């Protein structure tokens, strides 16, 4: 009896502690949300107080001033195309490297794995020089192209590990049934890769959606700005309009959080799979 009571109070205490810690973790977001609904004098005077009236004016003006629709559209298009192309091209590349063992394919694989430890800072200066010289900067297409290059090594690495475990028999059976090289890949192999595709899509989507440094170097024109870029420029332009700035942060965060609510289990699973490999 006393043991079970002790256990019950123990777990209540554990829940209480966990809820408190989680609340502390999420408090910065709550503070930003609350203050985004206030006027600027209210924010400055009492950032801890509840808003007297809920005002959405900040959201309306931030939405226009930071060109929210254009920024979210750019971010969406760039992320979507980059992630699709990274997944497809890397899966095809890894498939070739696993199924055609030669000194060349082993060397290529090793170069890709080694490239994973190169920090972006070690590449950005020559990258800008070369692509600036041939006039390939200032375009979202160049940015997507670069994302494929930076994303390929890790994606190839993940696909490579997985394809090694797929037995050849399935592919041989498909060949006997009259499937060509592409048929075998697209109809037999690609569907089997689905769990790895999920991991690659999740990791790369989070990276590209939130990336700041590369787009800030490549995209100059206002109309090409992605969400992190327009958030940054918005902050450097309107430094004292706190309510409006905080509203822009909430608007930037909401799409990701909404997506997360629906796909939370997949995201956590994808992160785990990507890290453990």
């Amino acid at each position, binding site marked *: 009896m006393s043991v079970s009571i002790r256990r019950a109070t123990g777990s209540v205490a*554990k829940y209480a*502690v*966990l809820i408190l810690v*989680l609340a502390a*973790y*999420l408090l*910065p*977001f709550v*503070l*930003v949300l609350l*203050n985004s609904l206030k006027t600027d004098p209210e*924010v*400055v005077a*009492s950032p*801890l107080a509840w808003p007297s009236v809920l005002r959405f004016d900040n959201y309306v003006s931030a939405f226009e001033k930071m060109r929210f629709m254009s920024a979210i559209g750019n971010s969406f298009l760039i992320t979507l195309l980059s992630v699709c192309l990274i997944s497809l*091209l890397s899966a*095809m*590349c890894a*498939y*070739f*490297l696993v199924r*055609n063992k030669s000194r060349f394919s082993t060397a290529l694989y090793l*170069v*890709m794995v080694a*490239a994973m*430890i*190169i*920090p972006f*800072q*070690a*590449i950005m*200066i*020559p990258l800008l*020089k*070369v692509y600036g010289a041939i006039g390939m900067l200032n375009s979202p297409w160049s940015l997507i*192209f670069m994302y*494929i*290059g*930076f994303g*390929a090594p890790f994606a190839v690495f993940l696909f490579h590990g997985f394809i090694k475990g797929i037995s050849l028999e399935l592919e041989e059976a498909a*060949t006997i049934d009259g499937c060509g090289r592409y048929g075998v890949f697209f109809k037999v192999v690609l569907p089997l890769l689905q769990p790895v595709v999920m991991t690659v899509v999740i990791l790369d989507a989070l990276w590209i*959606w*939130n*990336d*700041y*440094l590369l787009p800030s170097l490549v995209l100059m024109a206002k109309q090409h700005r992605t969400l*992190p870029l327009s958030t940054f420029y918005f902050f450097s332009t309107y430094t004292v309009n*706190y309510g409006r*700035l905080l509203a822009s942060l909430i608007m*930037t965060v909401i799409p*990701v959080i909404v997506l*997360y609510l629906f796909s*939370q*289990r997949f*995201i*956590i699973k994808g*992160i*785990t799979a990507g*890290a*453990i490999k």
Partner: protein
Amino acid sequence: MQYRHGAGRKIGTFMMFAGPATLVFAVVMVLPFLYGILLTFTDWDGKAVQLSFVGLANYATVFGDAAFWSSMLLTLRFAAFTVVLTNVVAFLLAFALSSGLKGSSFFRAGFFTPNLIGGIVLGFVWQFVFSRVLPVLGKLIGSGALSTSWLGDPGRAFWAMVIVTVWQYSGYMMVIYIAGLTSVPPELLEAASIEGAGGWAKLRRIILPLLVPSIIICVFLTIQRSFMVYDLNLALTGGGPYKSTVLVSMNVYQTAFLSQQYGPGQAQAFFLFLIVAAVSIAQVYFGKKREVEL
């Protein structure tokens, strides 16, 4: 078997399957990386078409550059604190969440949330907390340490960056530690309990040794990330106050793009690459040695 093993056919298959990814990888990563090494030996100023070789002059400039060394030391200090604190916090969270607690997936999802959001937005969120909310709270409770903005003081601005980084990455590493903890066989822990092992003994003798692979992954990821932090640095402190929180990534950026010293900037970047590579290789090497086979 319909496979023909002609060399031409093999090259054709390569071009169709591996060609696009390999080509883009080569022109986006490999060539700029190699070209970057070349640039460190030249006096390129960002505009000149003709490059002239200056030997090791850029490296000499970097080695004599006090700002670079202070940003390097700051980054090392930053990395040391964030790696230790992130992993301790992440492990504690994972340990609390993996003992068959109901609703643990809710908590797990909650603690992971900061990792969905980029460094720029997180930096601005915390800038508001440190510069607007905490001073008001500090005056309210009469605490001297809180009553002025942390971001206005060099020492405390550094800790603000550490706190935000630990806050963000601990949720990420927690997910990896949870995966490691759930793969510890419960029979092993039960057997240990029967033999009379307490909670501490089980943690030290069974759980931690089996968790070595997860610890290696997490330490590796946190070191790598803390050496390359840029977005958060930019949005939270902007390198200030008085350039006291310029981490090495920001220093590379400022040297190259703001001071237009591309040669020295690239030399710094290459130095950063050497450090990150050395750390990664050492980590993997020592990690392999300590791994426990089940």
